[in-house]
């Protein structure tokens, strides 16, 4: 029996494996692996089958199906939603650029030494604490609806502008903490080595500490990027017609919730590959670290 390919196994018929005990062990391990996979498949079919059967036999299932899972409406909405999603894409790509830059600036400000620079450190700390404490939706309301109303000359009233500003302000606070963890994870002996060669503090940071810090925090940065993608729907509340607002409009016109399910599908399709990438990067880093220790 050979489920995983490889040369036909004659060892069982001809007695002791002529290729030695090592090969016999390999074969045993392969068979064990195949068995675990089969068990996992069977148990998944049973579990999800049962779950599906329970849901499909619930008393409200037909009504639920009509309200949330209308295939015709789904097919009709997807193109409009995809078009509206382009607004979200512009929002999170543009905001991410500012977030990465501003977050780094905040992190560096917080790591500045000396009493003279205390005001800068304090400012950055208050900022980070404040924006992490506030619910995002509040900030979006206050900035997006409040500041344009001040009518200050030269201050743009464009909602898209304020959407970018609020997302940047909110997420920079989180991202700066990620950067700071990265900076703290670089051993002080690295800076000592850089300074001992005559590099200034700024040069040590720029050429020695930050390159190592940023490399280490790429997976958590990507995690925050996934969060940002999802939170772009929040700016629909200050009047930007993006994917969620579009779904609301269609839903209100058709008295059906299927457009929301369609929005969920769009986000799943975009976000899951990125989440997989993050996992892959983390496990690759772990393998590299292990290899580094072994060397």
């Amino acid at each position, binding site marked *: 029996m050979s489920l995983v390919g490889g040369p036909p196994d004659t060892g069982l018929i001809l007695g002791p494996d002529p290729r030695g005990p090592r090969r016999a062990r390999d074969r045993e391990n392969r068979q064990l692996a195949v068995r675990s996979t089969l068990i996992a498949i069977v148990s998944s079919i049973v579990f999800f089958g049962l779950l599906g059967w329970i849901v499909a036999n619930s008393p409200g299932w037909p009504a639920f199906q009509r309200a949330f899972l209308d295939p015709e409406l789904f097919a009709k909405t997807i193109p409009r939603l995809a078009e509206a999603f382009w607004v979200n894409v512009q929002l999170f790509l543009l905001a991410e650029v500012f977030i990465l830059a501003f977050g780094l600036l905040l992190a560096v400000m917080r790591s500045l030494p000396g009493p003279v620079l205390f005001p800068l450190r304090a400012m950055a700390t208050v900022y980070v604490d404040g924006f992490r404490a506030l619910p995002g939706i509040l900030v979006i309301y206050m900035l997006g609806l409040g500041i344009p109303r001040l009518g200050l000359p030269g201050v743009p009233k464009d909602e898209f502008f304020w959407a970018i500003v609020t997302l940047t302000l909110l997420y920079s606070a989180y991202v700066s903490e990620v950067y700071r963890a990265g900076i703290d994870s670089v051993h002080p002996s690295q800076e000592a*080595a850089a300074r001992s060669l005559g590099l200034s503090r700024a040069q040590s940071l720029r050429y020695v500490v930050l390159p190592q810090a940023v490399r280490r925090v790429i997976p958590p940065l990507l995690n925050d990027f996934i969060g940002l993608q999802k939170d772009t729907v929040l700016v629909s509340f200050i009047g930007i017609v993006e994917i969620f607002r579009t779904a609301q409009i269609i839903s209100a016109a058709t008295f059906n919730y299927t457009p929301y399910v369609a929005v969920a599908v769009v986000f799943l399709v975009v976000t899951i590959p990125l989440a997989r990438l993050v996992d892959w990067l983390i496990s690759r880093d772990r393998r590299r670290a292990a290899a580094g220790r072994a*060397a």
Partner: protein
Amino acid sequence: MTDRAPALIVEGLHKSFGKLEVLRGIDLTVDEHEVVCLIGASGSGKSTLLRCINLLEPIDAGRILVEGEEITARKVDVDRIRRRIGIVFQAFNLFPHMSVLDNVSLAPRKVLKRPRAEAEGEAVALLERFGLADKRAEYPDRLSGGQQQRAAIVRALAMQPDLLLLDEITSALDPELVAEVLDVIRELAAGGMTMVIATHEMGFARDIANRICFLDAGRILEQGPPGTILVAPREERTQRFLQRITDAGRL
């Protein structure tokens, strides 16, 4: 020798970490081209002394002069001072995200503002001299401990320091890799490099040092040529320390 100021003068140096007084009045003069070895038990203050000389640790009292210039004065530019003093650490402290060549040429390029081609040319020449030319494109984690430490020495030399400090540079190495690193130091000593070396390798200290200083509890208890200190030490504590080393088979 000449009437130039000594390469290094340390006067009345005190240094505490919190309540722990690590250095309790160090006086030390090192002449140009002299090789001074610091010996003593762990915690006797050897590493701290070197880190103070490199201005990596602020000092509590006393002063340090390099070629007559007081480097512990208030308004001194520490980056300019550090260019003249190289230090090699026990744990190598190479930059893991850079190739060996970049490790060596970074400071000449960024601190001395040398053009890249020139800085890299000199770095390659130095690497060649110490048998690392074929490793120039490798990252530090691809090198053996001995190769890493030699690369760290080359990195310090690339700044052409007047004074080189070596902080137990063979302590983190497997025994069979110690020789290749010590050979490099021997070559530097033969070339006239002024060095202060903290070490546990007594045989090496005997071979290379013009003078050996025995540190005990933050003071230089006894100093003199290797023939005197290692063979007929005056102080009882020095005798006991050397006895322990001899018993451990390291002399």
